[in-house]
């Protein structure tokens, strides 16, 4: 009994791609679930917010400098 290799190959293709996508889809779902749980129940300690508020004047200068640099970069 001669087996048709091409038919076998096509079967492999559907099985293989199906399994790869199934695996990755499950991975994506569980990854999202994991991230959700971790962010909800085990959040990373946030760096204290107050310290960044004080030197606001400096921040503005820095932002202006960065904006200028980006504009310059885009032109060139």
């Amino acid at each position: 009994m001669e087996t048709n290799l091409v038919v076998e190959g096509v079967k492999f293709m559907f099985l293989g791609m199906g399994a790869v996508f199934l695996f990755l889809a499950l991975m994506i779902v569980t990854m999202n679930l994991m991230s959700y749980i971790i962010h909800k129940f085990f959040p990373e300690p946030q760096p204290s917010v107050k310290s960044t508020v004080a030197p606001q004047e400096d921040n503005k200068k820095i932002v202006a400098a960065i904006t200028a640099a980006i504009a310059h970069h885009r032109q060139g």
Partner: protein
Amino acid sequence: MTTHLEETYKAQPFMDMIEGFLHSTGIDALMNPRANEMNAHGEPISDFHKSWGRVIMILITFLLFYLAIARGFEPLLLLPIGFGGLLANIPLAGIGGDTGFLGIIYHMGLSNQLFPILIFMGVGAMTDFGPLLSNPKTALLGGAAQFGIFGTLVGAVVLSEYTPFFDFTLQQASAISIIGGADGPTSIFIATNLAPELLGAIAVASYSYMAMVPIIQPPIMKALTTDAERRIKMTTLRHVSRLEKLVFPILVLVLAILILPDATPLIGAFMFGNFLKETGVVDRLSDTMQNALINIVTIFLGLAVGSKLAADQFLVPDTLAILLLGIIAFSVGTAAGVIMAKIMNLFPGHKVNPLIGSAGVSAVPMAARVSNKVGMEYDRTNMLLMHAMGPNVAGVIGSAVAAGILMSIFK
């Protein structure tokens, strides 16, 4: 001692000694092939493969040296492979045979698939899953690119069935098509399992094409995308917490255990390396895996693969078919990744720049760099590198899963 020597050693006329010496030179062995010389498997070799075949193979290894040194094509692997090939083609010395040192290295870790697993550990310790964790859906691109493997598998069996030139078995066709996964260790792992006789050609094709990613991929990426698509800017990646990175390797391994245990040798080693790195408490071990261990294994792996470049195994028509199918596999994988990104853009949500789809073929991090470079050609401010690392590492997982499927079919 001296009496023993006198018993076994007979005085010879000086002319006979000179004649014997001339008969044992490499020139003589190449010009007049020895009738009783066997290959590494103890089978007879044709005269061509003992004479000109060896000369041709030695010249081919010189070409590999040139590509590695002057053109920078994966020198870390092509140099050991090339030199192994050079040594394996020396007449009379039998370095690639069972008792030669290349043969010993081959049996030490390649015929039992140990080396590719150890390489996977090191690669795992070098991998950062952060970009994937911050944009999980890009993992689908790494899945689509595996179509390069299975599409080529069908191509290879069609060639064997309907053309008189090739006659690959399903095992051989599977081993060849895994080149499309663009993952050297996975290719070697599968080839030693399913078609050890094709190992040399498959490994050389796999690593050469990985080195040629910057040449092969951009034309395909540009042909399949519009100018507007290439300029798509992706949203900034969110911060990924340490705990997420720590849980992820375990999560993937558990999935592999539940769904595809045949893929766990590769995925298990990969995630072991990654887990040690992410714990941050065993920097010594993770550092060894990333540097010392992977370097040592790379030397052994390269030499052992090189021993399969012996003329009688490499200079056969199948090699040409493998090189051809390999590049098809690579191109199809690249195209499938890009097309998948375009399909994802049909759905609502953040748009994906299709240029990162090509990074779904593994080839870490070269394929991601290519995505970044092509993106910058159209918009200098568009940094795609980190976005492309997501599909890139997903591609490694995807090809390990594909390898697991092939292993489970033929078990």
